[in-house]
């Protein structure tokens, strides 16, 4: 029982972090038809900028804000200078965003030093609660709560607000959205910035969870993000939550029961989905529109 609860909490926490990373990826892909291979770079920049702000100000909250601001700013620059010039050309997009990933990752080493940085959980989130014989680590619960809150906020915005309507309309038919007077390129920019900020937030929250941050973590987690986007269906927001939880749980259970497979299980999962259901497990109706 204790083990089961722990594995589930572990899996959920990891899943939530991957969800935050994948949410941006999937929105950007759905709306702009851009698969951002540099997303992991935004993630790792969020982690470093956030943690350094946290260490400087000794406030975890300020650190989180620092990460989000850094992410949004990097998102702004990326969209303007990297994505816009190659808009509409998939192959160039794939190539250029991968190049940016490389640069962002190496820049981390230049700015913050090549070695990993150890991270401490803020005191009020450290430690654990004991409920009966089940031990729940506070920080993991914190991540899960944050994840659900953010999902809730976004789901509300997408379903209930005008800007959400515009984004959903743009995901389905960019040309028509423009013909209705929507400045779609500006919407692209905002969505890209929001996606980047989410990735940065994910990196920041990941830092105390894993205890250490390092430049290569961007690519490692980005791959998990890609897997989630594929399994969840590209462009599907709620699909990415379900897929992220699936990937998180699979990783946590495999790591305990079949550790040899833990690294491979998600890749295999993605390969199977891509081959047999390339639109994703929870894909939207998008393709059937016209």
């Amino acid at each position, binding site marked *: 029982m204790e083990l089961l609860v722990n594995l589930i909490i572990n899996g959920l926490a990891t899943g939530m972090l991957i969800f935050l990373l994948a949410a941006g990826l999937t929105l950007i892909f759905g709306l702009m038809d851009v698969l951002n291979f540099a997303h992991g770079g935004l993630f790792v920049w969020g982690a470093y900028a956030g943690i350094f702000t946290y260490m400087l100000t000794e406030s975890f909250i300020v650190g989180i804000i620092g990460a989000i601001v850094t992410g949004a700013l990097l998102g702004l620059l990326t969209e303007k200078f990297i994505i816009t010039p190659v808009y509409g050309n998939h192959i160039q997009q794939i190539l250029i965003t991968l190049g940016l990933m490389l640069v962002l990752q190496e820049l981390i080493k230049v700015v913050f030093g090549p070695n990993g940085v150890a991270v401490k959980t803020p005191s009020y989130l450290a430690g654990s609660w004991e409920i009966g014989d089940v031990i729940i680590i506070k920080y993991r619960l914190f991540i899960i709560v944050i994840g659900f809150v953010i999902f809730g906020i976004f789901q509300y915005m997408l379903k209930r607000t005008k800007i959400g309507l515009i984004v959903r309309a743009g995901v389905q038919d960019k040309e028509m959205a423009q013909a209705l007077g929507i400045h779609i390129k500006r919407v692209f920019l905002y969505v890209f910035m929001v996606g980047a900020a989410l990735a940065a937030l994910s990196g920041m929250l990941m830092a105390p969870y894993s205890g250490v941050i390092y430049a290569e973590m961007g690519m490692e987690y980005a791959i998990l993000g*890609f897997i989630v986007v594929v399994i969840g269906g590209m462009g599907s927001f709620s699909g990415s939550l379900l897929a992220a939880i699936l990937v998180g749980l699979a990783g946590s259970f495999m790591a305990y029961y079949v550790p040899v497979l833990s690294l491979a299980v998600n890749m295999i999962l993605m390969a199977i989905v891509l081959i047999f259901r390339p639109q994703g497990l929870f894909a939207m109706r998008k393709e059937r529109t016209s």
Partner: protein
Amino acid sequence: MNNKISLRAFAFFLLLVIFIILPFVNDSRTLLILLTQIFIFGILAMSYDILLGYTGIVSFGHAMFFGIGAYTTAVMLKQMDHTLLIFVLSIVIGMILAGFISFLVGLLTLRLKSHFFAMLTLAFSGLFLVLAEKWRSVTYGNDGFTFRAPDLFRDRMTFYFFVLASLVVIFLALYRFVNSPTGRILIAVRENEQRTKSLGFNTLHYKVIASVVAGIVASFAGSLYAVSLRFVNTSVMAMDITLDALLMTIIGGVGTLVGPLLGSAVIEYAQHALSGLARDYPIFERWIIFFGILYILAVIFFPKGIIGSLRLLFGKWRGRLKQRKTTGPLPQEKERFE
């Protein structure tokens, strides 16, 4: 036209002669090793060009074929015997393995759209990397292992000539391949897959052929690489190898075969020079940043690479604005319209 071909053939011949004479004129060990490295990565980059430049597909998993070759050769030389026969046999087995795996992977994934394909190849090569790390009884994991090269290759110069000869053979073979009817169809797939399909060609079939050819050649490059180091570890399967091939192809010029060779020379030399500089100026330890930036700029402003841009310049100079067919820019996915 005839005149031009012979001119080009003459240039190649001249270069070849220079590379044959060079070791006798300048017997610097460093230079020899650097050139060997350039040739090996040249072969790898040319194989990548078959995919990116000629067929218009982006693979992020090319390292797995390179790694298959490297491990096959290394393991066989270590566990069986370090003879020339085993070496040749290991190359053949590596190529067969790589060909088989690229056939399977290609068949499963090449029907998908470009992003999915790029991602899936990334995942597959990730799997192979994990395999190399976990199968410690054979690969010794991350630490890798050293092994003895065939006696003949003890001498760096002999190995240099062997690699040079391989490069020439592979280059000529690939040149024939891309100019064959099959190669022409690959170019058609790159230019407009939909139209090629509607002309009655099974494009998946041709894309699989391209991926098998590229995989086999990459495996061969991997075998040579392992022998050149007499050591192998998981880094031969790592993303960096794919990135190197990508960088060389883009910077040299996609869809030209010569471009990737030039790209290999540029990148390998620059790595060598920059890592030298790094001893004095630590910023150069992060030389990969410069490549990354160069690469981004190349994709935006210079998508034809060195060779492609030169050809364009030549074309203008001759008043022929029309590019040669093989000098296509970075493949574009045509926007659909009614």
